[in-house]
């Protein structure tokens, strides 16, 4: 059986910096994987590579056994959705419009002629999908709120909703709990886990907060200076002295 996501020996360098060196892992459908590691250890670069934003110099990524190549929009249409460490929302658009762009772009169908021939309005299917998705993330009824007016916690939720509305098969989260308080973070984790259980979506989450990592369950990957230092369950990984010294410093 092929795994959902298969990352084989990927490598990225910027000039002389080896941001990611020869990292491999696999992830089955409906599984979670957390990536931890100090700042600058290449976590975001790894995620960018999987999402197609930065090309890997070497190695390959397979989604359901098919090798991925091309640009982020290509990857998005194949079912990879993501959030960003620095949120990438559309400040002057409403919440509903955020989800609408994502819904329509998922299929990338030709639109110009349809737009020219009549005023394009939201179909009832689109309305329904948006309302359902907003309900899942606890933003029900906020369709017409302009996102630029929201706080960081809600913006992260909007980004998550924008990713989830496309019904992705792999969700990539980049420090989605940073800047959130405990309640917001646990709500976010709940939403992700619930969706994953419901739809079989796989999750790769970069996390700093170990309590969030524990909440995600699943395997943990430790990345230090672009190198995979350990892999396994959180307790096993933390028990590894190499990881402890590189990442957490000396611990009593």
């Amino acid at each position, binding site marked *: 059986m092929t795994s959902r996501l298969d990352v084989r020996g990927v490598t990225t360098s910027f000039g002389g910096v080896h941001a990611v060196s020869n990292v491999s892992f696999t992830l089955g459908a409906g599984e979670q994987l957390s990536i931890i590691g100090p700042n600058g250890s290449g976590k975001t670069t790894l995620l960018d590579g999987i999402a197609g*934003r930065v090309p890997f110099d070497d190695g390959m990524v397979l989604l359901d056994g098919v090798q991925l190549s091309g640009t*982020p*929009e290509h990857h998005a249409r194949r079912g990879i959705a*993501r959030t960003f460490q620095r949120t990438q929302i559309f400040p*002057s658009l409403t919440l509903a419009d955020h989800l609408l762009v994502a819904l329509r*772009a998922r299929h990338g169908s030709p*639109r*110009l002629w349809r*737009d020219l021939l009549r005023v394009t309005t939201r179909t009832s299917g689109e309305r329904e999908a948006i309302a359902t998705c907003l309900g899942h993330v606890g933003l029900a009824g906020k369709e017409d709120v302009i996102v630029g007016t929201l706080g960081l916690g809600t913006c992260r939720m909007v980004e998550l909703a924008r990713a989830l509305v*496309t019904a992705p098969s792999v969700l990539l989260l980049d420090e989605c709990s940073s800047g959130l308080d405990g309640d917001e973070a646990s709500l976010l984790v709940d939403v992700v886990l619930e969706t994953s259980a419901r739809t079989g979506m796989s999750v790769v989450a970069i996390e700093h907060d170990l309590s969030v990592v524990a909440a995600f369950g699943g395997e943990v990957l430790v990345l230090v200076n672009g190198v995979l230092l350990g892999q396994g369950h959180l307790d096993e990984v933390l028990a590894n002295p190499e990881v402890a010294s590189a990442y957490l410093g000396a611990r009593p």
Partner: protein
Amino acid sequence: MSQLWSYVLPGFAGGCPQALLAVAIVLTYTATGVLNFAASGQAYVAGLTYALLIEGGHSIWFAAVISVLVLSPLLGVVLDVALFSRIRGASQTAQVVVSLVVLLLLEQVPALIRGDAPVYAPPPIVGNASDVSFHAGSTGVSSEQLGAVVITVGVVALVAFVLKSTRLGLTMRAAVESPRLLELSGVKAFPIRTASWMLSSVLSGLAGVLIAPTLVQVSTVSYWMVFVPAVCAAVLGGFRSLLGACTAGFGLAVLVSIAAGYLPESTFFQAVVGPGIPFVILAVCVVAHPGMANLLRSSDPLATVDPPRIVAVVPPPRTAASWGISGLGLAVAVAGSLVVLLALEPADVYVLSTGIALGIVFLSITLVTGVSGQLSLAQASFAGIGAFACGQLSLHVGWGFFAGALAGSFLAALVSAALGVLARRLRGLALVLLTFAFALLCDQVIFQWSWVGGGFTGVQMPIPSVFGTSLQPSSRAFLVLTMAIFALCGVTVYRLRVGSVGLFAASLRESEVGSRSIGVSPTRVRFELFVVAGAIAGLGGSLLGSLQGVVSPASFTIETGLFWVVAVCAIGSVSTTGALLAGVAVAISQQPNTATTALGNVGLWIEVALAFSALSYAWRPEGMVEVLRHGAIKQIDALHLLTSGRSRS
């Protein structure tokens, strides 16, 4: 061999101003992130001042010192302190718009002050053109040329030395790498930025003073012709390297001089191929240079520390007041049209028709700038392509206006598609540069071919005829036709703006990274909008041409195009209303009746006023119309709250 020298040496000497200007452009860009189109205007003002001072009986040295070492740095400081330092958070597009405004003002204000009496070429700072200093082979090098080369090389070497070896230079280079890091280490960016504006202004001014003696008359167009290769050289230097830009400036001049010398003597090559070389080189540089696609990307390692400063156009929520305003607008428009149709004099009808036809062309700017968030300087050229195609088809094939206008619109769409394919990786500044090169190519070369632009006399345009009646330009029927076509194009633009394409474009404007991550293809969205914009511009161009009766290359010059962009940015680039009102304003400013009054040239005043108000684009990119509309909605909502609160209590 000596023939080669006879091309190389003058080329080298002639390359001085563009090398200096290139260094100035790169200096400003690296230190402040502004692609300064106004550099050509700064050079013009310095050259003009130099010429006028000498004309007024001052000595050459006095004139040179005043124009290069006093006026130019002053201008640099004013530009920085009063303008560019205040818009650092604005988008690069907005900064380009502001620099275009500065350019227009620098070109128009002298005309406003002193009228348009010709200014003849002043003598050079050193040497003179007929005095041969030495011979290389059989080619004599004049002392003027020698002097220019010595001054240029000396000044660039001095600038390079200052940047390499002094403390000021070190901080300036640091400011280029990371203004944030520099500020964190306790150095204020302010004097550094101002210093680099001063320095680049001095370089531009010196370029301007070196150009002036080589001209017949000191005119703005001649400065454009130096600015283009200078931008080319800056592109070749990757907008990073001063010495690279300087070398490229000289190199290009020599290359063009050699190419011009060795081109076959036939008029086709001399008149057609030769003049196009600089623009084609610029286009090729922009498309092929690997750095250009990423010109927008900051290399500041601390750039991610700051949240991006966006000028968000947050639309007010749709309330009763906003529907009321829209309804009122519609009612006023209908009532206004009725009044206009019944009561206007033919001359006014003509101005209004022209304004609406211009409004159609401006709708293409709405699509590219307001919807797609890009800046194209070539929309006037697409209008020209439409008009010339319509005119030539009528002249040679006997097509009527409507068939010709459709064909012209189609051709303009095709050409913009071709340009769009070339530009598919480009956005922001790189796209500005490519459209600039294309607009110049049209202006200086393509429209000059008589089988396109009709030569000196221009092309006679067909007059539309409906049910066998031909519509005279100043007739009400023509006005109705223009209104109908505007409505058609306006509906198209509106549908695109509120439809899927507009939604995708909006998401791309706000976060390209975010949109791509959900599957939006920026290339495709921008391409589609660009092509539709080309078609609309072509159609509007035909209509405009038909109103004018005859179109010539002078109808669609690069300056016209720049002014149009500025006018739309001032009045409103995001709505059809904005395009319409901008069209009418420009038509009024160009109307011959208002040309001269007690105030001088009223049209010129309107242009200057429009340019000034376009400066607000940096702060409120949605333009005057939207600002007023949002303001009105807010007022009414507040009033509504107040009264409803009172009735409750």
